[in-house]
Structures are given as C-alpha cells and as structure tokens.
C-alpha cells in the first residue's frame, strides 16, 4: 500500500498546523477542553462528531474569529495564537462558513474581485474605478475561477438571487480564491443535493496537493472521498483519531452517533 504524500515526508518537516491544549469555556460551560493535534502539510483532515461536539468552535479558534480560553495555535512553526483573524488570512489560513456568509447585494464577480484585488495588492488604489479595462488581470483570474467552478454564466447575478447550492459554491470559491496554504471548510456541502455534493467533492479532490485541508462534514461520502485522516470529536474532546477505514469500523463512533449510553 502506498502511503499518502504527507506520511512519506520526513518527520522533521514543520507541520502545517499544531494545536496544543486548546480550550474554550463560556462561563462555567466548557465547550472544548484541552485539544491537541498536529496536521502535516498537504494533509486532508476531516473532523466529525455529533452536533454540539465543538467542531465549529474549534474552527473559529483556529481561524482567529474566537479567542480561546487557553492553548496555542502554531501555523508552519509560527505561534499565531494572538494574531488577529484577518492577518491569519493574509498568512494563508482561510476558512469558509457553515452558513452562507456572502456579500448578498453584490454580484458573484464583485464578491470574487474583492478577494482577488487583495491578492493582487490593489486594495489601496483609490483613484481609479475597478473596471476590467483598468485591471484586466484580476478580471481574467475571476473568469478562470468562475469557469472552473461552473459559475461563469452566473458571474453578473446578484448573490441573493442565486440558488442555495450556487451560494454554497460561491462560499467555497471565495475561500479558494484567497490561495490559502491551509483551508478550513466548515460543512462545505451542508444542505446541498446529492448531485451538487458529488460535484463539489470532485472539485475539492482536484485542489492542489500541497494545500492542507481541514474539513468539518456530516456527509460520509465527502469525508471518505477526501480525508487522509479523521478526528472524531465528542463532548468537547477528541474521542479518537485515525485513518478513515479505522474510524469507519470503530464501534465507538457508532455509539456516539446512535446515542448509546455509557460510552465515555
């Protein structure tokens, strides 16, 4: 059996992400307790677990949208625990949202151009309208991305007029357009039809191999179609971690999903 790229790398290589003792409490309520794990560069790691396990809270803290109560996050060897979220994005740690979180009154293209203009370092240009004739590069890049993601004919549609599935595609596309080194996908296919899910899965499988992917997902087709390793969260802690086959056959995973008593 051939090993995935991330496992064949030398042990000394800096991990893409290291989470150490990360915890979050709201008052007396402990949402996440003392989470630690390491993710190698290029790894595709899925996080599964029942609702309320703390998956989204974990992503919020890794992305910097929520301050942890304790613990540290290290990104390619750099401690980013106190770096604000928008700067983490600039370093290449990008997230998508579980619920569509888009600029609803703007067109698909304008949503995308806001990402691309920053990647091109144009965000402080104030004296020239952002038209295709002035900034052809970002418009071409937008065209290519929209074509790859099957949204080319929706380019001038206002986001709020798109179907839910299309909005979901835009949500993921905005993350990818940022050209991240680590991409956190929070339930990318939530609420999508089966065929839409398959379509998204194929696109995600085609992402560059050196992109590290963290994904929260309930759809097991997506989890097993994408992940190298799976972490199971339960009650704010890590229940187990392993490759997809091992997780699939582990009785404890069945127990937490189907609600048997006295598991932990």
């Amino acid at each position: 059996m051939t090993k995935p790229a991330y496992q064949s790398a030398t042990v000394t290589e800096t991990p893409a992400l290291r989470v150490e003792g990360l915890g979050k409490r709201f008052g007396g309520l402990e949402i996440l307790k003392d989470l630690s794990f390491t993710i190698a560069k290029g790894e595709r790691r899925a996080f599964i677990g029942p609702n309320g396990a703390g998956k989204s809270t974990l992503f919020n803290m890794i992305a910097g949208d929520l301050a942890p109560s304790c613990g540290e996050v290290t990104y390619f060897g750099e401690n980013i625990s106190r770096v604000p979220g928008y700067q983490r994005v600039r370093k290449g740690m990008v997230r998508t949202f579980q619920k569509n979180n888009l600029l609803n009154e703007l067109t698909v293209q304008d949503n995308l151009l806001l990402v691309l203009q920053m990647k091109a370092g144009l965000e402080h240009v104030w004296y020239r309208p952002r038209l295709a004739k002035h900034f052809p590069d970002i418009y071409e890049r937008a065209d290519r991305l929209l074509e790859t993601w099957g949204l080319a004919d929706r380019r001038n549609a206002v986001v709020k007029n798109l179907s839910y599935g299309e909005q979901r595609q835009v949500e993921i596309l905005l993350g990818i357009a940022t050209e991240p080194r680590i991409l956190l996908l929070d339930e990318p296919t939530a609420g999508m039809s089966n065929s839409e899910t398959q379509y998204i899965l194929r696109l995600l499988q085609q992402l560059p191999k050196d992109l590290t992917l963290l994904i929260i997902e309930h759809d097991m087709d997506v989890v097993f179609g994408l992940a190298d390793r799976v972490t199971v969260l339960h009650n704010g802690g890590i229940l187990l971690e392993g490759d997809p086959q091992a997780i699939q056959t582990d009785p404890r995973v069945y127990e937490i999903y189907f609600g048997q008593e006295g598991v932990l």
Partner: protein
Amino acid sequence: MESQKIKTGSLAAVLLLCLVPFLSSDYFTGIMAEILIFGIFAASLNLLVGYTGLVSLGHAAFFGVGAYTSSLVAIHLSANLFVSLISGLLVSLVAAGIVGFFCNRVSGFYFLMLTLAFSQMIYALVYRWGSLTGGDNGLSGVPKPTLAGGVALDSSSSLYFLILILFVLVMAGLRLFVRSPLGQILVGIRENETRMKSMGYNTTFYKNVSFVLAGGIGGIAGALYSYFNGFVSPKDIYWTMSGEVLIMVLIGGAGTLLGPVFGAAFIVILETIISSYTDLWMLIVGTTFILFVIFIPKGIVGLESVWRKSAKARAPVQTESPESVS
C-alpha cells in the same frame, strides 16, 4: 454607453450651475450656494452611512470644526482662501481621526451613540470656550476669503463659483473613489463585515479611513458655509444639524452618489419656502421624512425606478424596441 451618458449629463448640469449667477437674482444664487454646500456635507456623511454602512449622528462635529477653524484662521491669521480652507480641512481630518478611532471600536447602535456623544462634547467645548469661539453668540465678522493676489471673493457670484468648484471636485473625487478597489472595500464592509475580515481585510482600518475622509469633506463644507454666511453659529455644530444632514442623506437616497445632493436641495428649498410662512417648518420636514421612509425608502433617487416600474405597467408590451437594433 452608460459612462458616456453620465459624462454628458454631469457636464450639462455643471454648465447649468455655472449660469445661475448670471441668470438669477442674488437671492436665488444664495439658495443655490447653500444647496451646494449642504450637498457636499450630505455627500460626505453618505460616504459613512450609504457606502460603509456606519450610521453617524454626530457628523455636524466636523462641519462645525471646519467652520470654526477656517473662520478663526481667517479672522486672526490670514484671510487667504487656501490657508484658511486647508486649516479647516486639516483640523477636521484630525478631529475625525480621533473620534473615529474610538467610535469604530463599537458598532451599530453603540457607534451611533458614541458619535452623538463626541459631537456633543465638541459642541460643549465650543459653547464654553467663549473667549475664542464667541460661545452662544457665535463667531461673527468672518472676512471673505482672498486669493493669492489679495483679490477678495466678496461678491455673491464669486463665492458661488468657489463653492461650485469645490462641489464639482468633491463629487468627481467621490465618484472615482467609491468605484475604486478601496471604495469597494467600504461597500463590502457595509454588506458583510465578517466576510470582509475572513477575506483578510482589516475592517477597522478601512472604517477609520471612511470616517476620516467623511469628516474632512464635512469640514470643507463647514468652511464654505462660514465664508458664505460670514458668521458661524454654535447651531452649526449642534446635534440637530447632524440629524438634519442625516435626513438629507436618507431622503435623497443613501448609497448613491447624487441622492444626498438631491436630499440637500429638497430640505434647503423646503426650509426656505416654508419658513417664510410658518415657524413649524420642522414639523413639515418631519412628516415628509416619515412619508419617504415608509413609501420611498430608497429616497428621491429611488423615485425614478418607482416611476419607471409604474410606466412599464401602464405601457403596452413592446415586442422590439427600434433603438435596440442600432
């Protein structure tokens, strides 16, 4: 071409505005000048309210700071236009920088209350510092601005042209700015600040940029108003002035370039006409405002689309318009 149409339209409008002092009385020219000044003021607040989504109830602070600074400089230091105008601009930029720094740490309702609180603090300072600002009596005897050769802009038409030139510069600058990559960031913040952050934008920084810019342009409007009146009243910095300019923005159409200018024209004309008949003109402005908010929430510029829709409903269906062929 859409942009060609806009160019032709603006050129025609500017030419018409240039003719005003030659074709009408000093009284009417004065009203037009006041409309242009409040047009600049409303357009500056619109940058905050309409484009960045930050509703401020303290924008008169910067109008007032601009007016008092330019007037004090004109009275005590130099009546030179550039010296006094640029002093007014700089001090209002600094004031907006300080106020914006604090206000942009909170959002929504708290932002609104903080802008109100800061503007009332500035008002209190102006009101109490009577030796400098004239306190309740205001600042009178502001000299008319002079140009480099010592030529004073003392006729109503020369002042009108100064105001018109600045109006055109501000509007052209704003049109360029709001469509630029930087201006589009502000629109993005209005739409969804969380998403802008997760795109990597330091939204607080851009909100400060918007606040400072709005304050600076508001300061220019204030300076022009003091030249125009030859007098600054503490009313110009009071919160009712902030409310009035906010009403101009909303009645005209927030988030559009020309809407606030139409709103300013509407309020100035209403005020001039009605106040000559009754003291209750605020009542009428209030009623108009309520009607606008309920029936035409997009403001005066929204009237066009309302009219177009109803015209479409009435007109027989056209299969092919002859223009579309050419």
